[in-house]
């Protein structure tokens, strides 16, 4: 019998900094300013942080580098690099550390200056001997293959993909922090420059700067907060491959594993979820994840977006900040799914606030549909 980890940790504070462009600042400076914002939001001092959960695109030894910069000596550190899903996966390791008493205040944090530093997606160089001879443009070529297969198997169309991009943009227009806020139409997406068929440049996430941080605390510490805690009701983490070549099925992501784990722990079903915050690296991601997480049948993800359910006023809002496609995508997006969910649950989301929002699903994606992490956050334990 395993330990019950439901609601053993709560989000006490969240912080954002430098979404879009933060010229002249390093990834660490951007991250630290987000950390400061999250600690202030929580009403927790930096000296109270005894658990560190972080990775980034710059530091090979991210744990020691980030702890050194912040001047903390954590009792517990997890700097596992799952890719962009890592920060959602840290809901698991941080809750484990808190539930076992190894730490009381866990800090999840990330920062990147990849837009102003290089202007393009920064990816660590790792030899891919069985892909390299064929000139992959990872990650997009891998996602293009999955998209092509989904279209072949289920009749998903480029118009369905475009509807995903437009849904994100509709939300971004309500978010002052979003990087792209101009109106976007399906026709504009369809007419955009092709990068790797069937994906155009408008099917791809942004390349921005940005930092995000989340402070998690124990149940006891949560009782002393000035704001209502947001409980970590459940989580699940799964990865099935690294190279797209060894993905078991191109149209079924490991979200089909991580999702049920999270729902089981939380004791809820997809029908109970009020908002969904997904890692939308490419327009195919939300389609796959809505299917794999059980919000619609396999093959119906495109229809879900085309019918408008995800948009402002829809029955199940998805990526209420505008997502990686229109709000921010500083290399690793996962932490921003948690931050947006917490802001919505607390009723702090301004013009984009979803009414009657009590239970949120957050979902991180890493690598080429490789690592998936799901979290369920709620106002009620």
């Amino acid at each position, binding site marked *: 019998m395993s330990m019950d980890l439901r609601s053993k940790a709560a989000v006490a504070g969240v912080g954002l900094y430098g979404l879009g462009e933060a010229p002249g600042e390093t990834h660490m400076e951007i991250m630290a300013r987000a950390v400061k914002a999250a600690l202030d939001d929580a009403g927790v001092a930096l000296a109270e942080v005894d658990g560190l959960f972080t990775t980034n695109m710059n530091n090979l030894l991210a744990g020691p580098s980030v702890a050194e910069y912040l001047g903390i000596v954590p009792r517990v550190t997890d700097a596992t690099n799952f890719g962009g899903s890592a920060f959602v996966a840290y809901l698991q390791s941080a809750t484990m550390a808190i539930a076992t008493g190894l730490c009381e205040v866990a800090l999840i944090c990330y920062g990147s200056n990849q837009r102003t530093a290089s202007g393009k997606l920064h990816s660590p160089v790792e030899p891919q*001997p*069985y*892909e390299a*001879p*064929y*000139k*992959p*443009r990872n990650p997009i*070529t891998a996602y*293009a*293959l*999955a998209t*092509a*297969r989904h279209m*072949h198997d289920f009749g998903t169309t480029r118009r369905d993909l475009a509807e995903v991009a437009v849904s994100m943009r509709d939300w971004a227009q309500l978010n002052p922090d979003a990087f792209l806020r101009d109106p976007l139409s399906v026709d504009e997406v369809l007419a955009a*420059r*092709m*990068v*790797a*068929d*069937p*994906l155009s440049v408008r099917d791809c996430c942004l390349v921005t700067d940005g930092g995000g941080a989340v402070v998690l605390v124990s149940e006891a510490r949560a009782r002393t907060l000035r704001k209502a805690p947001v409980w970590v009701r459940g989580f699940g983490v799964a990865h099935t491959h690294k*190279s*797209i*070549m*060894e993905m078991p099925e*191109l149209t079924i992501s490991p979200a089909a594993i991580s999702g049920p784990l999270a729902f089981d722990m939380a004791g809820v079903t997809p029908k109970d979820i009020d908002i969904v915050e997904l890692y939308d690296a490419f327009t195919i991601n939300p389609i796959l994840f809505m299917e794999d997480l059980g919000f619609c049948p396999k093959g119906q993800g495109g229809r879900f977006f085309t019918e408008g359910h995800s948009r402002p006023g829809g029955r199940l809002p998805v990526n209420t900040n505008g997502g990686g496609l229109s709000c921010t995508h500083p290399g690793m997006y996962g932490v921003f799914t948690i931050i947006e969910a917490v802001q919505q649950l607390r009723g702090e989301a301004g013009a984009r606030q979803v009414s009657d929002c009590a239970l949120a699903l957050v979902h991180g994606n890493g690598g080429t549909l490789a690592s998936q992490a799901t979290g369920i956050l709620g106002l009620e334990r």
Partner: protein
Amino acid sequence: MTDFPNGPDAQFRQFLAEGRFMLQLCGACGRHVFAPRVLCKHCGSDRLDWVAASGRATVHAATVVRQKPEKGGDYLYALMDLAEGVRMISTVVGTPPDAVRIGDRLRAEIDDTPRVVFRKEGAA
């Protein structure tokens, strides 16, 4: 069984240099694996033997990478279903990239790189 001086990764490339497309077959569970490795990904056995690939494959998924002509132009990047039940990233030669479809039947060959590439059945 031959004792190879190199690991499976180097051995695969050595076979390619000799003009041979070889795959690993598990002596314990009877399934093929790719990419080359030390332990069978299906059963964990280290009894992986090299066998000649049939060279028969179909296109599982394909993308055309769009690139300006001065940079080499558009090219096909595809995932192939090999008859042995494994998948492999490769490309298709002898057919324009836009004319390759999921399900197309292919035959493997080794180009000058050397690397395994595929040609549509019946294509010149």
